[in-house]
């Protein structure tokens, strides 16, 4: 459905992306994960025909994005990162304009708009001016616009950025439900999001594809630890470290004084929740537990771990196979 081969884009001398190649099969939800500035938006803008690549080719539903641009664009629903909307239009006016731009008939526009109001839960705001909607609702209008013409391919650029957590959950549910019927290509800089929503994840770093794998394999290759951060008053650093490390299931403990308070980063197996046990041990000793929270890996760390495991795999597969 989406096929990219060697996409490269230079802005002046600066390569925003280099040699990006991948495929997304029909019905698949593919996540595009990378920190800010990695080149996600640039890649998506090339696929949607907004900007031409410096070199490389891509096709959408079998249509080359450069030589058959209109056909390719017809097959795409696109939610740009900026969620562009006409603020002086009502939701209904906006959607019917977008439908007309995609060449839908009047009746089809009407029935599809009603479908979209239901799917994106916009029923209460059908005739509100878009300029008066909250960010989360604008995001839904953006998604509705992308889905309106039932495109086989959906390209969503950071669809959950800047909206409140409850709406993030709803938006993810909507996207998850789109797989199967649509090929979805979605970008994000949140690891948890792509691993929840996507079948397959592609990681981009500094304009290059760093890893590409099934979502579940990805969490495995990340070593599968969760980390708990504790802030403790009383006791020496060594003592506390020793006590925490003695809890079964803890893999490593690291002290961190960078924030002024003494805190400990505890890595543990994700299969069990050690928070209660850790707290008990601290309090038993008469120390004060000031703060405790779990934290995910930063994208930087994810990237490091992934490339490390990738190299291991590469060297493993480089061994000569028995003939």
């Amino acid at each position, binding site marked *: 459905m989406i096929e990219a081969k060697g996409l490269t884009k230079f802005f002046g001398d600066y390569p925003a992306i280099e040699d990006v190649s991948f495929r997304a099969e029909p019905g698949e939800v593919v996540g595009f994960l990378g920190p800010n500035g990695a080149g996600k938006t640039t890649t998506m803008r090339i696929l949607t*025909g907004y900007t*031409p690549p410096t070199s490389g080719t891509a096709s959408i539903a079998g249509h080359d994005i450069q030589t058959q641009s209109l056909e390719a664009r*017809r097959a*795409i629903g696109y939610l740009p990162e900026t969620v*562009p909307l006409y603020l002086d239009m009502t939701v209904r006016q906006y959607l019917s304009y977008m439908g007309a*731009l995609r060449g839908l008939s009047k009746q089809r526009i009407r029935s599809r708009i009603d479908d979209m109001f239901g799917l994106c839960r916009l029923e209460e705001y059908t005739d509100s001016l878009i300029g008066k909607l909250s960010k989360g609702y604008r995001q839904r209008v953006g998604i509705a616009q992308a889905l309106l013409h039932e495109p086989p391919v959906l390209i969503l650029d950071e669809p959950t950025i800047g909206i409140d957590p409850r709406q993030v959950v709803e938006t993810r549910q909507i996207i998850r439900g789109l797989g199967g019927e649509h090929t979805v290509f979605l970008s994000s800089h949140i690891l948890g999001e792509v691993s929840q929503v996507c079948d397959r994840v592609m990681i981009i770093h500094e304009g290059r594809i760093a890893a590409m794998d099934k979502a579940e394999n990805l969490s495995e290759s990340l070593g599968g630890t969760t980390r708990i951060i504790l802030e403790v008053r009383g006791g020496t650093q060594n003592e506390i470290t020793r006590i925490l490390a003695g809890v079964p299931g803890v893999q490593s403990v690291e002290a961190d004084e960078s924030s002024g308070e003494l805190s400990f980063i505890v890595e543990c197996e994700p299969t069990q929740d050690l928070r209660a046990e850790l707290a008990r041990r601290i309090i038993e000793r008469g120390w004060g537990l000031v703060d405790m929270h779990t934290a995910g890996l930063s994208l930087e760390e994810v990237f490091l771990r992934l490339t490390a495991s990738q190299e291991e795999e590469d060297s493993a597969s480089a061994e000569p196979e028995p003939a």
Partner: protein
Amino acid sequence: MNVRHIQTIWMKEIRTYFSSPIAYVIAAVFVGLTGFSFALSVESRFPEATVRGFLFGPTGAFFLVILMTPALTMRLFAEEAKLGTMELLLTAPIRDSEIVLGKFLAAFTMMLAMFSLTLYFPLLLIWFGDPEILPILTAYAGLVLMGSVAVAIGLLGSSLTSNQIVAAVVSLAVLLLLWLASFVATLGDPGSLWVDFIRFLSLNDHLRDLTFGILDSRDIVYFLSLTAFFLFITSRIVEMRRWR
């Protein structure tokens, strides 16, 4: 070119015009000031039973078209660039040229609507006097043709930037240059190639004959090709913006 695509853009832009005060204000000022010119011309010591009175002069229709078209057109592309909706337009399955043409037609339609508000001047002339009809028709043809050039230039200005004020100022500069070209030409050597060329570009010279009822195909070709030229350039600029 797909007519439906053009029509979609056209209708959307017209709706936007009617939902903002700018078009109403422009039309009101235009009708007011041209009415003032018209009244002066029929009140003068040697009243002419022609529409020339409301066309020429500092508050005449021609000069007002120069001054006011940029305000009418500045929004068309600059706002899309600012809102980011340009990304939607340029990834929709329609051609860049269809977008340009649709927007052009919308502003041009507004301009025609504004011109139609002045039709009571010739009606008054016919009611109270006995004017020649042909010069009135050709004068309006000149106004319409000039309007199309002005809108095309305004659209070009708007495609260059995401700042509406910059768009308006750039378009105004180009329009004034074309308007004043015949005056500029008088500063040079008569007979030199440059002076002839500048005179040829001048809006003024091509309009004069039309207001006297002289329909010269060269004048018509001039206005139409200038419009086509600016629309073509606008199309290319929209295409080039994709590279940034």
